[in-house]
């Protein structure tokens, strides 16, 4: 075990899935032509006034309840002042002193070689703010091109306590957060499109030391993998500096995924003086207990509750349950599939195995799976009633992926039905034994691994259709039984 302990806290920005922006009636959509959805308020033109979107308040409350947090009775907006071309007002409307969501916590599961471990990570706060626009430096030579479509997009910034002790814990936390915001329907969580962005505060300290080490902040980590890699790199970098007798400089660093390294962006001590003050354009927002209760009454099932339900209702193991119940789309697919298939364990294996690899290969989300859950369920039920073997089922599944169609039709049309006629199988077993006297002698001399050879021969002769259980039994009986 290393003499150093890693300490990680995450700041996660979640773009809220509203129809309009946080302070203006401009549309909140990704992918429009530049500046087509930047209104006068988003552009910061003189004389405009921001008006808060009620859906944003609802969504923040929903998140707060999901992490057992205090919801502020009075919440307030502040101006965070800095100059950058994609921030036309010269300040970002954010929250400082009275964030809408206070202290809460999130239970996470960290997968490990020796099983999963559970941990609770503290949530310091979550506050509302507006996103900035985008500066593009390679569009026009020598100039910076500014697209303000994103300006005014509602963000919920979720700040964790420095409770995580490894890259794996940080990834587990981010995954759980991702699953929750998707379940709550407050964001699509699409990390490629920037709907969920993560900054990591990383420091190390000698094991047993209570005082935190100097931290660096790694910006804009837009995938689970990059978060993991960036933390691992940064921990190693800090260790090398401290072990060489140096000291860590508090700074913002950028993760370069192509070179797998973090680089210094700017030094914190000098640049950061945001001169926050309450925004006079926005009055304090009150949230009544009745409002909170109304939101609570409509809370959906969250990943943790769903995992527990799957273990109880479907008899899944903790591992299987984590794999199929964490993400709501996967869980919905699983439930629709198992309702038809019957066997939960077998269904979980198919969803995590064959289906996941097809989705991976075709780069599709489970929402757009090429095989409908009920159709996969019917295929699985054909394995259970011994119509086909698992191996043939994979062939049928590939045909369903490629050409569509019902499993029963495919099985009939291609003559894939399993051969369970014991008379027919016995005849095949006899002929294989007769044709391979040499292997039979070896098998009987103790080389029992040769059973596979005989199985293979018969599978070849039947195009894989022999019922494998029955075949093994017959072969063993004949080979072990003599004659």
């Amino acid at each position, binding site marked *: 075990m290393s003499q150093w302990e890693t300490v990680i806290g995450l700041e996660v920005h979640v773009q809220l899935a509203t129809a309009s922006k946080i302070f203006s009636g401009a549309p909140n959509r990704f992918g429009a032509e530049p500046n087509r959805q930047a209104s006068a308020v988003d552009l910061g033109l003189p004389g405009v006034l921001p008006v808060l979107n*009620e*859906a944003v308040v609802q969504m923040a409350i929903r998140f707060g309840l999901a992490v057992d947090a205090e919801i502020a009775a009075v919440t307030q907006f502040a101006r965070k002042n800095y100059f950058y071309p994609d921030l036309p007002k010269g300040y970002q409307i954010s929250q400082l002193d*009275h964030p809408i969501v206070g202290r809460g916590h999130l239970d996470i599961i960290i997968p490990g070689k020796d099983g999963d471990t559970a941990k609770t990570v503290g949530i310091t706060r979550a506050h509302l703010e507006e996103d900035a626009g985008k500066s593009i430096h390679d569009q026009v030579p020598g100039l910076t091109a500014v*697209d303000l479509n994103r300006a005014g997009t509602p963000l919920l910034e979720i700040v964790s306590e420095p409770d995580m002790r490894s890259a794996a814990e940080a990834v587990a936390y981010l995954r759980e957060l991702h699953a929750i915001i998707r379940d709550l329907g407050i964001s699509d969580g699409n990390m490629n499109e920037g709907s969920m962005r993560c900054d990591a505060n990383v420091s190390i300290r000698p094991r047993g030391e209570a005082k935190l080490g100097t931290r660096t902040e790694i910006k804009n980590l837009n995938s689970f993998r990059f978060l993991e890699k960036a933390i691992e790199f940064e921990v190693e970098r800090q260790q090398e500096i401290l072990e060489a007798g140096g000291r860590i400089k508090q700074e913002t660093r950028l993760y370069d995924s192509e070179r797998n390294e973090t680089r210094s962006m700017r030094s914190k001590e000098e640049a950061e003086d945001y001169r926050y003050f309450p925004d006079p354009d926005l*009055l304090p927002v*009150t949230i009544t207990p009745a409002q909170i209760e109304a939101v609570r009454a409509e809370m959906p099932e969250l990943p943790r509750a769903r995992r527990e339900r799957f273990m109880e209702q479907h008899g899944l193991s903790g591992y299987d349950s984590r794999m199929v119940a964490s993400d709501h789309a996967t869980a919905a697919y699983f439930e629709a599939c198992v309702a038809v298939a019957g066997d939960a364990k077998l269904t979980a294996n198919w969803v995590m195995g064959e289906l996941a690899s097809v989705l991976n290969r075709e780069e599709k989300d489970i929402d757009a799976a090429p095989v409908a859950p009920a159709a996969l369920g019917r295929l699985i039920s054909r394995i259970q009633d011994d119509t086909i073997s698992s191996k043939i089922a994979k062939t049928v599944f590939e045909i369903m992926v490629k050409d569509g169609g019902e499993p029963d039709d495919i099985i009939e049309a291609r003559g894939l039905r399993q051969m369970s006629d014991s008379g027919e199988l016995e005849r095949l077993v006899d002929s294989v034994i007769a044709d391979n006297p040499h292997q039979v002698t070896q098998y009987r001399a103790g080389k029992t691994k040769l059973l596979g050879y005989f199985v293979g021969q018969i599978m070849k002769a039947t195009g894989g259709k022999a019922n494998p259980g029955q075949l093994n039994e017959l072969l063993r009986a004949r080979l072990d039984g003599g004659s």
Partner: protein
Amino acid sequence: MAIDAEQVRRIAHLARIGLAADEADRYIGDLESILTMVERMHAVNTAGVQPLAHPIDVTQRLRPDVVTEADQRESYQSDAPAVANGFYLVPRVVE
């Protein structure tokens, strides 16, 4: 409250205000007199008084989440000093 020229330059930099060489010293006096006035408030007992977030004692009215703004890019961009391909153009800034 004492202010030095370095602080004045720093505040000016944060606000992106250009200062001539002799101006920093002049602003020391101006800023100090403002702060002296503010300091008088220290004499008031504010124990138990909530910080004032807004002078008007009403709360924020919220807006329903509907799109009400039409695209007016051409009109907005007609006032901009430089645009291309729908982007606003500014002198190159790279961190």
